[in-house]
């Protein structure tokens, strides 16, 4: 292709313009792909949850606990088969938020019955049931910190009632895994420990953060929820009971709003970058239009001139797109470690650049390339 140098020389001689165009495109593609992945993950999270599980919590806010006496009263309501306390412990590993992973105080036996997706060998289960300071950790979490059964570690909570002057000691009794086909989206980076430990370490002041209930039939969820909340209607502390799905949704909605916000900011940034690029390009356009006119005057066929311009623009688009996708791949890989958003996206199975999003990215790159070519269009012949 003897015309290739003509294209490459443009890209090389105006390397600063090439670089800024490629970078601007890369940032746009990066933002589009990363944010789309987050939004997808959040949407996915909204649909997770088991329909035969209900969650009861303080009517006002998750910040407040329910009295411990509520557990037996709720367990007695017809249709409720099993209950476990699930308290968000808010423990920080190594005293730093950046090592954050979800950790919850639960009632081991009931918890494992209600959550069949948490799977671990029988001997590890038994060890956990009988070990006051024992905990189980997800396979991914264990891999991350190279924890084996029998290892010790400490967590210190940032929630005031759970701050008891010293960190909590834990022993790894089991490492749980899941059946990803049957239970997609199970978080393998969480840690669960015995509620009794929390209760005693806080001088029996820990209440019930949330109570998860297993009910006989998802069809009865509405009736049972109403029955529970009616039971405490006239008490000092009222309850709010909803399906686990709804509970997660309200929880994730916060992350979802954040994702939407990020998306908005991202798109605004992308748009700004495009405008800046457009400006840079328009400076280049005059020069290029004259040049295209010269080529045509010298007898270059219109089709060839158009092809040269298109290929150059598409090359820019391709470079920008590839770079943007590489950056997005890296960012999405790092996403689960981001506090809060990370908790939500981590449940997304096979988190990564999906083919759909890659095609979005490449499509956007292609469009940007075509747009560049359009900017340079000029099929007139230069005046002699």
């Amino acid at each position, binding site marked *: 292709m003897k015309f290739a140098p003509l294209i490459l020389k443009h890209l090389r*001689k*105006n390397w600063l313009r090439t670089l800024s165009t490629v970078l601007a495109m890369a940032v746009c593609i990066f933002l589009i792909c990363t944010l789309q992945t987050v939004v997808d993950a959040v949407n996915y999270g909204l649909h997770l949850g088991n329909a035969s599980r209900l969650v009861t919590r303080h009517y006002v806010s998750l910040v407040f606990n329910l009295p411990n006496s509520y557990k037996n009263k709720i367990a007695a309501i017809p249709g409720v088969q099993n209950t476990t306390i699930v308290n968000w412990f808010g423990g920080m590993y190594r005293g730093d938020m950046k090592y954050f992973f979800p950790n919850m105080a639960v009632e081991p036996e009931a918890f494992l019955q209600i959550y069949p997706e948490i799977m671990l060998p029988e001997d590890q289960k038994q060890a956990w049931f009988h070990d006051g300071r024992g905990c189980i950790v997800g396979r991914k979490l264990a891999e991350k910190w190279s924890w084996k059964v029998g290892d010790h570690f400490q967590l210190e909570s940032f929630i005031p009632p759970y701050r008891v002057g010293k960190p909590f000691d834990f022993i790894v009794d089991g490492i749980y895994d899941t059946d990803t086909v049957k239970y997609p989206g199970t978080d393998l980076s969480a840690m669960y420990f015995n509620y009794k430990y929390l209760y005693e370490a806080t001088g029996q002041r820990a209440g019930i953060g949330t109570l998860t209930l297993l009910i006989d039939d998802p069809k009865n969820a509405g009736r049972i929820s109403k029955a529970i909340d009616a039971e405490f209607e006239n008490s000092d502390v009222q309850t709010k009971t909803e399906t686990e799905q709804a509970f997660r949704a309200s929880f994730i909605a916060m992350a979802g709003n954040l994702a939407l916000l990020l998306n908005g900011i991202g798109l605004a940034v992308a748009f700004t970058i495009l405008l800046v690029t457009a400006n840079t390009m328009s400076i280049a356009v005059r020069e290029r239009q004259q*040049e295209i006119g010269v080529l045509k*005057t010298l*007898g*270059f066929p219109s089709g060839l001139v158009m092809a040269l311009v298109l290929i150059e623009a598409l090359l820019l688009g391709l470079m920008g797109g590839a770079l943007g996708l590489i950056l997005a791949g890296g960012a999405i890989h790092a996403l689960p470690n981001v506090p809060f958003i990370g908790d939500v996206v981590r449940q997304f199975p096979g988190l990564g650049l999906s083919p759909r999003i890659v095609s979005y990215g490449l499509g956007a790159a292609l469009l940007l390339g075509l747009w560049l070519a359009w900017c340079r269009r000029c099929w007139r*012949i*230069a*005046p002699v």
Partner: protein
Amino acid sequence: MSATEVANKTTAVSVQNVRKFYQRDTMQIKVLDGLNLEVPQGEFLALMGPSGSGKTTLLNLIAGIDRATSGRVLVAGTELGTLSEGQLAKWRSRNVGFIFQFYNLIPVLNALENVELPLLLSPLSKRERRERAMTALRIVGLADRSKHYPGQLSGGQEQRVAIARAVVTDPTVLVADEPTGDLDHQSAEEILDLMQTFNKEFGKTIVMVTHDPRAAARAHVQRHLDKGVLTN
């Protein structure tokens, strides 16, 4: 030279009863109205006239860049009106060399590559193209600047590179629109010397538009265009 030889002297450019109208909104602008011009092979013709008289328009018709509204334009034995756009482009690349007032070099290509540009449309090998381009640069006296970019050359040097580009395909006709219009006296003289060389030694037919009487004095024939009509 006998009388018959003169009569048979081949005609490089023949413009026959050509009209060129431009339509602007509802108004019709008659730029050329029944113009006739014969340029014999090997002639150096200077075309003069006031601004807006249609000099560039006529040059564009001769160079096959634009089409006449009516009439015939024959250049190097081809009637241009019969060619399609694609054929016309191909014809230009083989038969016409262009020299512009503002040189119109490609800024990202060096002098040698600029000169080589029209040869990309020929079937020559890369080596042959380089050799020819180098030869053309040598003739215009810029062999030592072959790796320089247009931005690194003076106006006069740029125009010499442009002339090398115009002649590198060995065209029949050279068209030049105010080739010295943007140059100082010294550089203009050099450019005119070069054009005379190509006319005398290489037998190129040249049609040059100019406002400069000194430039016109270098030509064999001077024609004046006024309101779309050739005088003298």
